């Protein structure tokens, strides 16, 4: 790790400097293409795959069924047919020994009977069969309130950031980066074809918090560095911002790894044990979101902020002087 530490030192002093700001046109292009793909590919693939909470229906999970019966998916379908003939059902295996059966929405009575029939078919007690009955509006309700929460949050956070940083430009840059994160995460969901469940919506909302959290940490360093900038400084505004990003790069890498490790634990280990479920859905959204959130702070939020500020007369003047001084030297 000594290598990593001295890498951090060089970034700090500016001995080593990655030109995040200078190459911003490239990052914008990449972001633009990524956003375009995130919108176009899911549409081409036929839209999002919504979970039962959005479409409505009945779902059963048989826990710990005997291994010999799990692999045979017709058992589940037959059990459903024995209660309601010609009812279509989707039978899938989740997490090794759990069987998930989804059907169209059933009446409360029929639902009970199907649970009983499944328990019998898989030789498990009825208490090991989980059943859910979900009206088609439930998922939409959750999402509706989530979207309302989102709008309120965005308005509040824009004000809070503008007050804290004393400039609305940081708020705008952070919000654009946030929109980029959300579109990309949603896009990856659509591209891979993962089911959109309320749990995924929760994960989505957390990205919101995390993405802004990460941006605030880096912006605070930018604020610290640029506040000492005067018109006579030898460094241009863009260079100062770039130094701030480089100085917090080690933090960004360390934090995202530390945040990703437990989530990866749930995603890869937990999902292997559990299969689909609330935890997997949340952790998947978070896993993607944290990577994208950290990336967009560095490659999108700070370059955008630089562009927003670069038209200000004071900064233009500072840049001209610094460049002129350098040309003289």
């Amino acid at each position, binding site marked *: 790790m*000594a290598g990593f530490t001295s890498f951090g030192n060089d970034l700090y002093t500016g001995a080593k400097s990655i030109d995040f700001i200078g190459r911003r046109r490239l990052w914008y292009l990449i972001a633009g293409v990524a956003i375009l793909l995130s919108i176009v590919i899911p549409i081409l693939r036929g839209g999002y795959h919504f979970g039962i909470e959005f479409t409505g229906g009945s779902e059963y999970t048989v826990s710990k069924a005997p291994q010999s019966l799990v692999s045979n998916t017709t058992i589940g379908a037959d059990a459903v047919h024995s209660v309601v003939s010609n009812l279509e059902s989707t039978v899938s295996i989740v997490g090794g020994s759990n069987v998930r059966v989804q059907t169209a929405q059933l009446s409360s009575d029929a639902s009970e009977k199907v649970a009983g029939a499944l328990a019998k078919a898989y030789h498990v007690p009825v208490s090991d069969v989980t059943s*859910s009955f979900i009206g088609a509006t439930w998922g939409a309700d959750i999402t509706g309130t989530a979207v309302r929460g989102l709008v309120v949050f965005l308005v509040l956070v824009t004000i809070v950031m503008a007050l804290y940083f004393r400039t609305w430009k940081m708020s705008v840059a952070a919000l654009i980066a946030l929109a980029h994160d959300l579109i990309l995460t949603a896009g990856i969901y659509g591209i891979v074809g993962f089911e959109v469940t309320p749990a995924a919506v929760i994960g989505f909302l*957390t990205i919101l918090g995390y993405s802004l959290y990460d941006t605030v*940490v880096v912006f605070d360093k930018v604020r*610290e560095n640029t506040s000492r900038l005067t018109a006579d400084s030898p460094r241009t505004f863009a260079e100062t911002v770039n130094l701030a990003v480089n100085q917090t790069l080690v933090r960004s890498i360390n934090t995202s790894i530390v945040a990703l490790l437990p989530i990866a634990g749930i995603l890869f280990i937990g999902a292997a044990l559990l299969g689909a479920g*609330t935890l997997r859905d949340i952790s998947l959204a978070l896993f993607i979101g944290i990577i994208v959130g950290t990336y967009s702070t560095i490659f999108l939020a700070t370059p955008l902020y630089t562009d927003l500020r670069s038209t200000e007369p004071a900064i233009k003047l500072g840049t001209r002087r610094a460049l002129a001084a350098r040309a003289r030297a």
Partner: protein
Amino acid sequence: MARAVTPQVKARRSLVGLAVIVLALVALNFLGVLLAPGATFGTKVQSFVPKLGLDLEGGTQIILQAQTTNGKPPTADQLNQSVAIIRQRVDAGGVSEAQISTAGGQNIIVSLPGTPSQATINSVKSSARMDFRSVLLTSAATTSSVGSKAKPYTPPASLSNQPSTKPTNGSDLAYVTPYLRDLYDHYTCGQDTSAAQQSLKHPGDPLVTCDPTGTVKYLLGPVEVQGTHIANATSGIATTSQGATTGQWVVNLTFDSTGAKQFSTVSSRLVALTPPQNQFAIELDGKVIEAPAVNQAITNGQAQISGSFTQESAKALADQLKFGALPISYKVQSQDTISATLGSTQLLSGLIAGLIGLVLVVGYSLLQYRTLSFVTVGSLVISALLTYLVIDFLSWREGYRLSLAGVAGLIVSIGITADSFIVYFERIRDELREGKALVGAVEAGWRRAIRTVLASDGVNFLAAAVLYLLAVGDVRGFALTLGLTTLIDVVTVSLFTHPILQLIARRPFFAEGHRFSGLDPRALGAVYRGRGSFRAPVAATGAVLRSRGEAVRRQTIAERKAAEQGISARTGSIDTIQEDRD
């Protein structure tokens, strides 16, 4: 003269403060366990483990959407009334620890742990309504504890349930068949849950039921006026015909035109009868909430109920009457039955995954921060302890239940909590690179880091708070743990991490920058310059600079100290250097 407050004294104070907080939380939790109603020395009702949500514990969760007959969304008052009614039904069904809450404007979430009976589940879903019936018989009830497991009494089948003569009106005692008489005589309040269903399905039949407290039982005639005919109900202080107040709280009831006609017929009849038949019962959801006697025939549809009301009880009755005017039905949004087996596997794998994640975090920080990572681990442990205690406390006081989404929130918080330490450590390292001694670097690094930590945690907390206030269901559980851990993060970093660093900064192992301390100025490439200086801009790039850095790194501490003094002596301050360069 007050002694100067050194960082060490401050650090010790902070640690003492933290210890007080932890001890207070532990004491509160002990209090919760020891003082819980029903706890004896041997058995405890409460435990030190937080209660689990349905998705982890197993049970049935029903999400109902309240709907009024006029299609308008229910008011907050009506929703609260609904919750009260559903709670009554669930309690009568003998389900303990049920959770009933409103969410998102018109939803009611009913969580029934364990395996509730189908009858209980059905009773929860049925709509609630209010009716007026005449009282046929009433007496004090033989109470039995609410929700006792004993089967409700059923009269022998040999008794006839056919009236001997056809009843002529709602007060006709011909309704009291031998069967009903027997049922009434043996009726114990608190065992029967079917009164609400019975009333809803057979409004034209007599009904045996109790008041909500289970102290009075009634045999009532058929429904004579429906609650929908109530136009308005208010509470107020009664006035005499001269307009002087009597100081007595009353409930004023106004019927619509149909209701006025119906109530006129009933009250004209009842006023001539002897007690208890001169009483009419206001029945809400199968329970008699009030059974006033009629003093005079009310023909104009304006009734006044007086009695020993207080301001609160008069308002409560008026609210219930108004609620009755708009019967609410419930549409099932979702019904989940989670087997306890699935719940416990989920919890277990969630914990295993979280634990593995935590071990990885510790391993990584050990690589990055060497000995300093013990401070990280210690801080994480303190955070975990505080979080556990607060959640346990919330579970006791507020009935909070840890759900799967909540567990996810906790695991996510590991990253955010660890980030505070990373930001802080990196700032200290930055200060060391500037050439400060460790004690100074800790103080200066802290002043910068706490700003960042507060700003970023503020944004995170804002997100959690907005989600908690606006969202429904799982999202709320998630938001709560996220918000909670964000607050705890701030407490931990300022009352534990920083004081510990202040103290260890004096230890030679760290102060001299041992190779494994994680704060080794040599490894950090510190360049000793003037105190409080910040690095001059690096205009030169590439080979020149790298070789200069190399040379500096190869210097011994003594050489660097000498160089530092040389620079200070020569220029005094860094600003001069900058001007020179310009």
